[in-house]
């Protein structure tokens, strides 16, 4: 059978608190996350045969991971795919294990944004479209804001009504984050607070945007048949998917800007591998890339949680709340964790891993089908993206 389904298991994970870590370097964060993972897996660091390392900008080549951990001349691959870097590194590591090249592999993502500031699209990764520097540069929020305005326009939702729906997503994620000691923001907010917050990029306000934080997360993966040696409650990789756009939304004038095709494709690829046909019923939880609330809204539709144009009704019905039909972003999401770019993907897997093991404390959801989804997406709706999905499950 092609793919990685049931061939790869996670036997240990670690995750730092995500915060403004003024007093910590990226190396400190890497050591903290990876040693939690080693301890969780009950293994010695020297057992690691190869490593995949995800960072958008807090390090360069593989040595940025090897140095703090003193990885002993093993292969280390650095992966950069903007916000999808963590998932991308994890998926590549799964391929390496599934094909039999390695038995025990470390995946680590870390980012230290508070030392340097945010990367600005079109500047951090010059493409040929941009080296002349004549084209407009913009913050990601300004791109997602355009998705929001067009989405509202297309479905005939008045902007005020659209903002209210988005605010409900923020309120939900803040509530979940308030239950999570590793989140950057552990504070509930009200709908009024969200709606009355300053506008960042019309129509998105402060609470529609994720924070900027530092953090690291790590996973140790092994060939599935070796997992039992380490623990009983290991977690299997059930399906992976990735999709990359090609500036289609900008170059091709008939793209609607009401959904994100890359998300749709990546999810379908992962569902096919995991054998999921009705994600809303079959998934126990989903941790998705809510960099901005509008992104989470369109993800509901692209991932098949809600019919097209109907996500609004599901939000109003509370379908994706912690006690809802399909809890989304149970850990608080990017909204509560902030978004240290290369670390976020593995942070999401950490939540699903803990939930499947029944160790999520006050955030614990009902595990019926033993399946959870994680997703990150790099880029923006205007300049196109890389979306990546990993579905994890128990035996």
């Amino acid at each position, binding site marked *: 059978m092609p793919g990685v389904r049931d061939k790869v298991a996670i036997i240990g994970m670690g995750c730092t608190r995500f915060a403004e870590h003024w007093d910590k370097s990226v190396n400190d964060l890497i050591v903290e996350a990876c040693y939690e993972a080693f301890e969780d897996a009950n293994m010695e660091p020297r057992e690691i045969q190869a490593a995949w390392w995800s960072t958008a*900008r807090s390090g360069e080549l593989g040595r940025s991971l090897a140095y703090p951990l003193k990885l002993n001349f093993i292969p280390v691959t650095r992966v950069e795919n903007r916000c999808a870097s963590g998932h991308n590194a994890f998926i590549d590591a799964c391929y390496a294990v599934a094909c039999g090249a390695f038995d025990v592999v470390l995946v680590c993502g870390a980012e230290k944004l508070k030392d*340097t*500031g*945010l*990367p*600005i699209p079109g*500047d*951090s990764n*010059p493409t*040929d*479209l941009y*080296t*002349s*520097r*004549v*084209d*407009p*540069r*913009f*913050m990601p*929020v*300004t*791109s997602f*804001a*355009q*998705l929001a*305005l*067009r989405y509202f*326009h297309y479905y005939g939702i008045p902007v005020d009504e659209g903002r209210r729906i988005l605010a409900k997503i923020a309120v939900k994620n803040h509530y979940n984050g308030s239950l999570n000691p590793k989140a950057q923001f552990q504070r509930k907010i009200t709908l009024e607070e969200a709606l009355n917050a300053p506008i*960042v*990029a*019309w129509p*998105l306000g402060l609470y529609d945007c994720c924070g900027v934080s530092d953090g690291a997360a790590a996973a140790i993966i092994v060939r599935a048949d070796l997992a039992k040696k380490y623990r009983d409650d290991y977690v299997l990789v059930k399906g992976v998917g990735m999709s990359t756009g*090609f*500036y*289609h*939304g*900008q*170059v*091709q*004038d008939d793209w609607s*800007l009401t959904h994100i095709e890359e998300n749709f494709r990546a999810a379908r690829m992962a569902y096919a591998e995991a054998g999921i046909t009705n994600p809303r019923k079959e998934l126990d939880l989903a941790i998705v890339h809510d960099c901005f609330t509008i992104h989470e809204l369109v993800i509901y539709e692209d991932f098949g949680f809600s019919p097209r144009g109907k996500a609004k009704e599901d939000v109003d019905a509370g379908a994706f709340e912690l006690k809802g039909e399909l809890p989304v972003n149970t850990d608080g999401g990017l909204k509560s964790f902030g978004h240290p770019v290369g670390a976020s993907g593995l942070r999401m897997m950490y939540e699903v891993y803990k939930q499947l093991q029944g160790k999520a404390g006050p955030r614990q959801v009902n595990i019926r089908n033993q399946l959870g989804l994680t997703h990150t997406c790099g880029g923006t709706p*205007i300049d196109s993206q890389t979306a990546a999905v990993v579905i994890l499950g128990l035996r």
Partner: protein
Amino acid sequence: MVGVSSYGVHIPVWRIKRELLGKGLPGERAVAGKDEDSLTMAVAAALDCLEGVNGGSIDGIFFASTTPPFYEKSVSATIAAVLDARREVFTADFSGSLRAGTTALKVALEMVRAGSADRILVAAADCRLGAPGTPLEQTFGDGAAALLVERDAKIADVEFAAHVYDEIYDIWRRDVDLFVNSWEDRYVYTCGYMRVVKETISRLMDKSGLNLKDVAKVVLPVPESRRGIELAKSLGLDPKTQLQDPLMEVMGNTGTAQPLMLFAAALEEANPNDWILMASYGSGGDAFLFKVKENLKMPSLGKKKIAQKIANKKTLPDYITYLKWRKLVKTPEPRVDMTVSYPSAVAIWRETHRIYPLHGVKCKVCGTVQYPPQRVCVKCQSKDNFEEVRLCDKKGRLFSYSFDPIRENTPVGLINLEGGGRVFLDLTDVDAEELKIDMPVKLTFRRVDLRREDGMYVYFWKATPIRE
């Protein structure tokens, strides 16, 4: 006969009330937008002038200004690139005095008369700075005008011309100066302006054998309304009927562009067979006598472009905005991310076609118009099977937009162009609250606000609402 076949003007949409520049001062003046300079304004005037004329049929392009953005680097070549002019077109920049606009016109007329060109575009623009608080700052206005000179003129023939040089320190700007300097007012007007313009006009009239009474409209260079009227009276003109309104109350003195712009304004009110006199002043004088064609059939005439452009305006909220736009106050450099990079001269050169005339491509297989130009079709994946298409003249609709304080609320948006193609551009000359999804927009060539300049000015297209 050799003369003028078309005209174009650009008046920035921005005005500042003179009250903000000096207590009790009347009227307002035109102010170039934050992203405008003499280059962008000349491009706008040139495009306005060529409306309907194929840029490929032009033989020469002249630019005139005392405020070119570059001491070394030709603006006329940039205008030629925007217009998709032929490679062998003769380009030249004129500067040195406020006569530069009419000097360029003279050279164009003589080249066409001599037969070395059939059609030459002359664009003049100025964005002069008077020191804060001085009369110069109050009287200057920013703007551009363009004239199309042709062998068989369609609007007005140039029948006579006269020129005078004059060595004088009256108005000047040294290579180290930001602001225009001037000597004492009475000296400037007595020994310079009045004396020289009168001399030039009298030489012109001698040559023509006509009497000033025969001239329907006289376009004088007007540094201040009062001085224009004084000069007109001393020439024996009736300021009410014969003197072209210098538009000082609504626009200000647009420098090298002023004679061309006021001539255009005179044309908009002209009758067939009228004589129009146009004079300029700066280290001498130029003067021309035009005869309006007997059979005026210029579609632009009657359109009152200038009145329309004067009416289409937005007002600066305060003086500090003006100072910031002209970079006359130092604000702290924004802290920028360490990965923000400089513009690349190499990439700009390589992408000349997609930048200056905004060329996209149209797939020869599926017909999809796409921007920027592609090697592989975004729709049908055909490889290297495209024709280049010019997109900068296209109108469009605002597909979506947003704005954020990090970009000082400068809106940015996706624009769907008529005839196909989508571009992602900044929006300019618009307040964010005016924006609506699907509103009609047009494109305008502007200076890019770079986070890191590397000693370069970079230009690109922006979108702006269609207000006319």
